[in-house]
């Protein structure tokens, strides 16, 4: 599988969240995100509660996808320390937050991955593993599919297209073949099959600088083609808009497409999508324990509005109604049918 150096490894200026925010702030748009929200009667944007605790275990990944908003890769070393992982579990245990969403990087590479899943299951929470699929093909991680099945974990797996060329163009040479092998293994365990109770969702990001297709229509295509070509079944397809930050921002800059793409997102602002953005019901925890409104803000080093807070200072009433920190990148979640970790929102 082909792996590229991350922006951080390249010492690229856009490796820094602050540099990305400056780049985005320099784009002339007909209206700011705050103005768009104000027109929709949603400014300032406030959280409605915490339905999902999304824990980012670190930036290490076995892939270096071109669109990755984390700038994850094999050369990243940031990983959640044990005591912070313990704090996340304590917060979960002391609250009624129904869903624990584990992400990265490839979260399975974290030495505490088993423990966070086992503890989350013991607490009776709905568990989500954001899986890149190929990690389950690595020699030390072949246990992962059956381990996830044993704990009833919902698997949200990345597969940008049902053909190799587009998938490999985004995620690296050879990724498609390995992903199909992993999906077959999940299916063999019951994942994606009616009556098994094991949920296998797929995620597609556009392979380029355009908005995702209508989710329902794309899901019909994926279902037909994956079944016909590979005998693979799944539950839902989530369409997710490429966020113009990190490696996708670098890609857009290299192609001279940044202004056109961000303008396209801004023009496609949908007030209905804005009302349902995931940050209103999600709390994101960075690898070092810092709290964010979403994984994108985390990568832009844009902490909660007001002040930088840590998971050890978790204060439910304060966080429930917090004001969301915003930027031009937020147009990525409100364009067209909207975009979230659970796909389109309208």
């Amino acid at each position: 599988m082909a792996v590229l150096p991350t922006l951080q490894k390249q010492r690229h200026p856009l490796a820094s969240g602050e540099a990305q925010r400056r780049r985005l702030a320099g784009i002339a748009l007909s209206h700011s995100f705050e103005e768009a929200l104000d027109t929709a009667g949603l400014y300032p944007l406030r959280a409605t509660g915490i339905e999902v605790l999304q824990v980012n275990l670190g930036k290490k990944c076995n892939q270096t996808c071109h669109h990755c908003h984390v700038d994850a890769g094999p050369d990243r070393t940031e990983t959640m320390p044990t005591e912070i992982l313990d704090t996340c579990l304590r917060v979960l245990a002391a609250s009624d937050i129904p869903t624990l969403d584990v992400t990265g990087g490839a979260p399975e590479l974290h030495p505490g991955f088993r423990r966070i899943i086992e503890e989350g299951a013991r607490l009776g929470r709905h568990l989500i593993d954001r899986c890149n699929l190929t990690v389950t093909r690595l020699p030390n991680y072949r246990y992962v599919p059956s381990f996830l099945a044993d704990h009833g974990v919902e698997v949200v797996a990345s597969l940008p297209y049902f053909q190799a060329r587009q998938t490999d163009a985004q995620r690296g040479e050879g990724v498609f073949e390995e992903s199909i092998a992993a999906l077959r293994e999940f299916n063999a365990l019951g994942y994606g099959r009616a009556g098994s109770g094991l949920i296998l969702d797929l995620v597609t990001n556009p392979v380029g600088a355009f908005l995702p297709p209508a989710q329902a229509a794309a899901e019909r295509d994926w279902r037909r083609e994956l079944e016909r070509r590979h005998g693979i079944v799944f539950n839902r397809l989530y369409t997710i808009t490429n966020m113009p930050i990190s490696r996708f921002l670098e890609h857009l800059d290299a192609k001279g497409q940044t202004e056109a793409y961000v303008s396209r997102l801004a023009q496609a602002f949908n007030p209905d999508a804005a009302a349902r953005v995931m940050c209103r019901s999600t709390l994101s925890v960075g690898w070092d324990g810092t709290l964010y409104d979403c994984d994108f803000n985390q990568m832009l080093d844009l902490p909660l509005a007001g002040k930088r807070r840590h998971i050890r200072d978790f204060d439910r009433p304060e966080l429930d109604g917090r004001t969301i920190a915003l930027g031009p990148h937020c147009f990525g979640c409100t364009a067209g049918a909207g975009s979230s970790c659970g796909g389109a929102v309208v």
Partner: protein
Amino acid sequence: MNHEHYYHSTDLPRFSEIGQGAPELWDKFRAWYGAVFAEGALSAREKALIALAVAHAVQCPYCIDAYVTAALEQGSNEEQMTEAVHVAAAIRGGSSLVHGVQMRNHLERLGM
């Protein structure tokens, strides 16, 4: 203003400026255009592919840019889009060739 080329991709977002000369007609065009491309007996995806093919037949650079994006955003892939362009090319080529019948008709009239 850059006069080096006749067409500029940056002019496409200025399309609505044509409305300044005849606002009512522009409003009618926009409403009709929107209705044409809405889901109907044909899907929005099929319509985007037809538009892409027609864009090539009429060789409109703005329409080609716009409907490459639209076709991708409707979930079409490169193979489907290329086949649509071949349909346009086949009709254009076939249109020339079928006029060979007119050639033959006139040859017959002139010949012995």
